[in-house]
């Protein structure tokens, strides 16, 4: 049995199954849905290790999940009939349905909106949506939201409890509710894409399928008439530009290549073209979101015209007035070196003081390399390796050592 294939199937089916179980059966008990899905996977492992992966593994999983849920209700019904006969009559009537792709598409998107419930706080919404719908592990959520495991555990626990206590999901949202929840839904999709793109935990560095899934959801969203479109288009543009570089980033065993190390001929031209189309569409109206700015930055990276780097720098400057993150700060400093001067960038880089971030020390090393200061470059590469935690990151830094000492 191929373990890799198995983990891909489980990863992609996890959220689908949860979404369908929760949505179609009006489950309020997310824990129950998760238990059933886990149980389903367990049965799959057992059955498939004897007979191999069946021809239609997804259909297999859906059928088993469905049976398990029906069984759960049957048992519950018997229990209730014996213990509390007065409550039992016909309360738990379940229609047996076939789970189809159509239902999954609608369910998954609808579930994201349902889970992005403003009565839960914003971070809890994100945690629960990432956990249930994107099948993220606690560790992945922790990284994606730059938090710690304990906090995330608590948030998910509280969110589940809140949903359970309310006794039912509000599954029939009004169009106002849909529109007002859009921002958070977009953030969930954005984080989902980023996790697929940068994959913070899994050694297998690029998990394309999460990226495609995020793009699919976003395009589906843009086709719904009720939403204002600009933000959605901007996010699609951003994802198209990034996705165009997925193949160029890969470099055999060494993990992914940085932007300026990539072979630009490998960039996917169709996706760049799509990105431009959506970026143009997103510009209608006066709305400027961080997705617009990030998409515009990604666009400029595909250009080779004069003033490119100053445009990128100004976009980062603007982005920093909306939101701070260490990654934006570091990218901005690199753009500063390209647009203004290396000396200025070095000076600014030292002000950032991101003392435990290996990317930060890589940036300093890179700036000193550009400045032909090999001693300093090596000093900072040493620091970078001290703080890198993934094997392939260490490999990448080591290869820079080799280049530096040549």
């Amino acid at each position, binding site marked *: 049995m191929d373990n890799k294939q198995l983990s891909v199937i489980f990863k992609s089916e996890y959220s689908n199954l949860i979404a369908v179980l929760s949505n179609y059966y009006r489950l309020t008990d997310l824990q129950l849905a998760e238990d059933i899905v886990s149980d389903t996977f367990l049965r799959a492992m057992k059955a498939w290790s004897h007979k191999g992966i069946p021809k239609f593994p997804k259909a297999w999983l859906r059928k088993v999940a469905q049976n398990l849920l029906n069984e759960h209700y049957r048992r519950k019904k018997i229990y209730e009939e014996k213990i509390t006969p007065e409550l039992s009559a016909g309360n738990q009537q379940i229609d047996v349905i076939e789970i189809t792709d159509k239902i999954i598409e609608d369910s998954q998107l609808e579930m994201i909106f349902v889970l992005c419930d403003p009565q839960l706080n914003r971070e809890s919404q994100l945690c629960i949506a990432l956990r249930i719908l994107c099948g993220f592990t606690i560790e992945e959520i922790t990284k994606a939201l730059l938090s710690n495991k304990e906090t995330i555990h608590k948030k998910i626990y509280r969110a589940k409890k809140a949903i359970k206590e309310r006794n039912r999901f509000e599954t029939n949202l009004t169009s106002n509710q849909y529109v007002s929840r859009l921002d958070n839904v977009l953030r969930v999709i954005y984080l989902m894409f980023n996790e697929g793109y940068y994959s913070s935990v899994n050694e297998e560095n690029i998990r394309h399928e999460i990226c495609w899934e995020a793009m699919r959801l976003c395009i589906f969203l843009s086709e719904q008439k009720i939403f204002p479109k600009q933000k959605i288009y901007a996010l699609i543009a951003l994802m198209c530009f990034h996705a165009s570089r997925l193949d160029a980033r890969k470099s055999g065993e060494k993990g992914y290549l940085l932007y300026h190390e990539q072979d630009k001929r490998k960039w996917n031209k169709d996706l760049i073209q799509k990105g431009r189309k959506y970026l143009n569409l997103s510009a209608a109206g006066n709305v400027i979101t961080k997705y617009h700015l990030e998409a515009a930055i990604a666009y400029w990276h595909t250009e080779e015209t004069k003033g490119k780097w100053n445009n990128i720098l100004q976009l980062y400057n603007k982005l*920093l*007035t909306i939101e701070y993150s260490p990654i934006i700060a570091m990218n901005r400093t690199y753009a500063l070196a390209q647009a203004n001067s290396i000396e200025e960038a070095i000076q600014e880089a030292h*002000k950032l003081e991101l003392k435990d971030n290996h990317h930060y020390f890589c940036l300093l090393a890179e700036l000193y390399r550009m400045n032909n200061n090999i001693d300093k470059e090596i000093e900072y590469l040493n620091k970078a390796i001290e703080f890198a935690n993934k094997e392939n990151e260490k490999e990448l830094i080591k290869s820079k050592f080799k280049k530096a000492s040549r």
Partner: protein
Amino acid sequence: MKNFMMLFHSEPDPNFNPTPDQIQEEVKAWQDWIGGIGAQGKLKNPGEALGFEGKTMHADGSVTDGPYAEIKEIVGGFIVVSADSIEEATQLAKGCPALSSGGKVEVRDIMIFDEL
């Protein structure tokens, strides 16, 4: 962390007619400087740039022209930064484009009122 407001003072020069290139350069200098504070995670509010049109209302109800009441200097804009101390906040003003054209940066702490 506390919040501080930076107020940019300058003396308007009526004889200075910048070319479009000079204006662009000036705008870039400001954006780069504010971006630098943002990159340190210390930009609380990007503030606003103020124009040269202004009127002043006085206590007796009279209205005079110009943004400046008594002095020649005008406030050209503001931003809000966060810092541990007023000394640190003042250091952030280094490199501010207002200084290179003979202006000043005034750094003031922002009062916090307990919710009543």
